[in-house]
């Protein structure tokens, strides 16, 4: 009981956020469909939110500001998902495919 609790240290949350970011970046580079890349982008958003919440909990002088910022990130992520999915559906209607390699009419 003398050791401080693991969940009261900022380092464990920072490492988790770095893992989330690495997984999201790998998915963003490796996926070949647009929906897969969108999901990887959501992972990167989650990593940023976890980082904000960690600094908000442990280091910020006003713990309400970080929570409001994370709430705004969530709203932006929801709007981004709505617009991106409608674009993906429009792309599928035109190309009959959502693979990022085949959507290349603007490629030149």
């Amino acid at each position, binding site marked *: 009981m003398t050791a401080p609790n693991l969940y009261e240290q900022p380092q464990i949350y920072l490492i988790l956020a*770095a893992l989330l970011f690495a997984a999201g970046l790998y998915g963003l580079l490796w996926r070949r469909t647009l929906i897969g890349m969108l999901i990887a982008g959501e992972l990167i958003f989650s990593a940023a939110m976890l980082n904000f919440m960690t600094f908000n909990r442990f280091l910020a002088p006003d713990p309400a500001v970080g929570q409001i910022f994370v709430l705004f990130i969530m709203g932006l992520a929801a*709007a981004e998902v709505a617009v991106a999915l409608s674009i993906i559906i429009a792309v599928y209607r035109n190309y009959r495919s959502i693979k990022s390699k085949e959507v290349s009419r603007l490629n030149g």
Partner: protein
Amino acid sequence: MNAFPASHVIVSGLFAVFAALTVAGALIAALSVRIIRSVCGLALCSVGLAGLYYFLHSPFLALMEILVYVGAVCVTIVFAIMLAEPEESPRDEGRPTTLWWGGGALLISAAIGGSLSWLGLQPGWSAPATRATDGSVRAIGVALLSTYSLAFELISLLLLVAILGALVIARSGRTRT
């Protein structure tokens, strides 16, 4: 929290469960071949993140994470998967460009994740001496409607524009059959 003798063990176990859910969900979302499994991984990751937010003294954001990510984002992506057919054809392994691309992606993400973890492990994070507010839901509400009211209005406008834009984009090109 000291009233119950095993509470320390239970709380630590819960934290380990939520951290493992987050990591496992992120790995499933990034690595699985089928898109529907990757959406389920994103949902798992969001549940784990909600638990982590609870441990970070923010039950309000834990609720919002469940509500927005599991309830809205994942369900919307599932609908999009049903409308489009996102099956990835098996990648022709063994070709040198595929190997180079995969190795490069792994290297870049591992390097950035490792360096971010190293930065997080540096000593010198010091807690502030005093806290201005207690970070409760009441403090969030007061700050949202006083200091951040302009941003609050702007984000509601942005959500309205996003809804209208999504409707217009998804509707154009639809032929009446």
